[in-house]
């Protein structure tokens, strides 16, 4: 005998019979992965500022909003597809879908509606090249990374990381209407940063990924090989950090900041590489993971400070 309240309350015994739409506003907000979105907004904002040319402030605002909503839509689609493995990992078990606050179908349609809406609005407000780029990014994250790579290869975040690296390029395209080589330098900073960032996390969340059956590098190749990869990728990041200067979109202020910030990143990666056992061996990846988040914000922040410094210099010179 079914109870009507079972049909409309979240966490109903028979999920197929629930009507959905019963989650709190906070649950729908959580579907957008707001912390990831904040990074997307910030890096996209930097792309808007650094791109040559002018954009109306309102168009800039709407472009940022669309890129943020598009990123949020990708997050919702990811949470719909990954609900089964999210439920098995401590880090993700409290997400709205595995918690039962939001029906899987709701997350899917929520993500699809936001995807279409953000792409259409970006096309109307900025240009259709940027809109197509945003659509491709959502597809790349939801289909290429989430549905294909994540469960099939330990290189998942190496390739999938591209989705998180596109936002400053999309913002750049909102201003210029084209995809320029110079904007690729912003893409590459995030692209090269992603593997050491996620592998540091995967090192101290190995158990979670093992339980969920996600083939992260530490689970497939071992912790030692992952520490080696973190070190080599961090070294490879160093020349990439210099690209904005080589492409002429940033100057001396950025160069100084990038040198110090990347130097510290390499120092933390060296600790992860060298100290593998004991308390220090466990602590290294956590320190690197925490610093990597600060690093990316600071690197893109440095491009803004550099641009402001250049404007001041030109005003008074």
């Amino acid at each position, binding site marked *: *005998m*079914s*109870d*009507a*309240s079972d*049909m*409309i*309350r979240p966490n109903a015994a028979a999920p197929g019979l629930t*009507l959905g*739409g*019963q*989650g*709190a*506003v906070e649950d*729908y907000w959580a579907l957008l992965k707001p912390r990831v979105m904040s990074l997307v907004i910030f890096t996209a904002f930097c792309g808007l500022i650094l791109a040559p*040319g*002018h*954009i*109306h402030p*309102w*168009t800039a605002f*709407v472009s940022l*909003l669309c890129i943020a909503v598009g990123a949020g839509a990708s997050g919702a689609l990811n949470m719909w597809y990954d609900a089964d493995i999210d439920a098995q990992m401590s880090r993700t078990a409290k997400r709205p879908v595995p918690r039962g606050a939001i029906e899987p179908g709701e997350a899917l349609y929520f993500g699809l509606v936001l995807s279409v809406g953000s792409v259409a*609005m970006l096309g*109307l*407000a*900025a240009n259709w090249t940027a809109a197509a780029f945003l659509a491709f990014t959502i597809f790349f994250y939801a289909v290429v990374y989430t549905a294909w790579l994540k469960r099939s290869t330990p290189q998942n975040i190496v390739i999938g990381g591209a989705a998180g690296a596109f936002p400053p390029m999309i913002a750049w395209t909102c201003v210029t209407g084209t995809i320029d080589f110079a904007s690729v330098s912003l893409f590459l900073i995030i692209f090269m940063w992603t593997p050491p960032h996620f592998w540091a996390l995967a090192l101290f969340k190995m158990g979670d990924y093992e339980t969920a059956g996600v083939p992260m590098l530490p689970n497939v190749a071992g912790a030692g090989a992952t520490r080696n990869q973190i070190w080599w990728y961090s070294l490879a990041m160093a020349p990439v950090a210099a690209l904005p200067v080589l492409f002429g979109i940033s100057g001396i202020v950025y160069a100084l900041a990038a040198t110090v910030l990347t130097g510290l990143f390499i120092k933390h990666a060296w600790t992860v590489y060298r100290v593998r056992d004991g308390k220090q061996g466990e602590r290294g990846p956590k320190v690197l993971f925490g610093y990597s988040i600060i690093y990316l914000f600071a690197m893109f922040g440095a491009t803004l400070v550099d641009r402001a410094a250049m404007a001041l210099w030109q005003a008074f010179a």
Partner: protein
Amino acid sequence: MTTGATRVQEIETYTPTPEEAARRRKRSIAIAVILLALMLLVFVTTIVRLGGGPAGA
């Protein structure tokens, strides 16, 4: 076993708990705010695009 018609009737006569009612009210307000913001967004964007300023370049 309940029939489809009985289920519909049960849903229609179901009284939400105070917690469910509060959640529903917050959702309704959020949807209203988002719809108003969307209207404003499209309206201002149209004005800006028609203005032929840098945005239309």
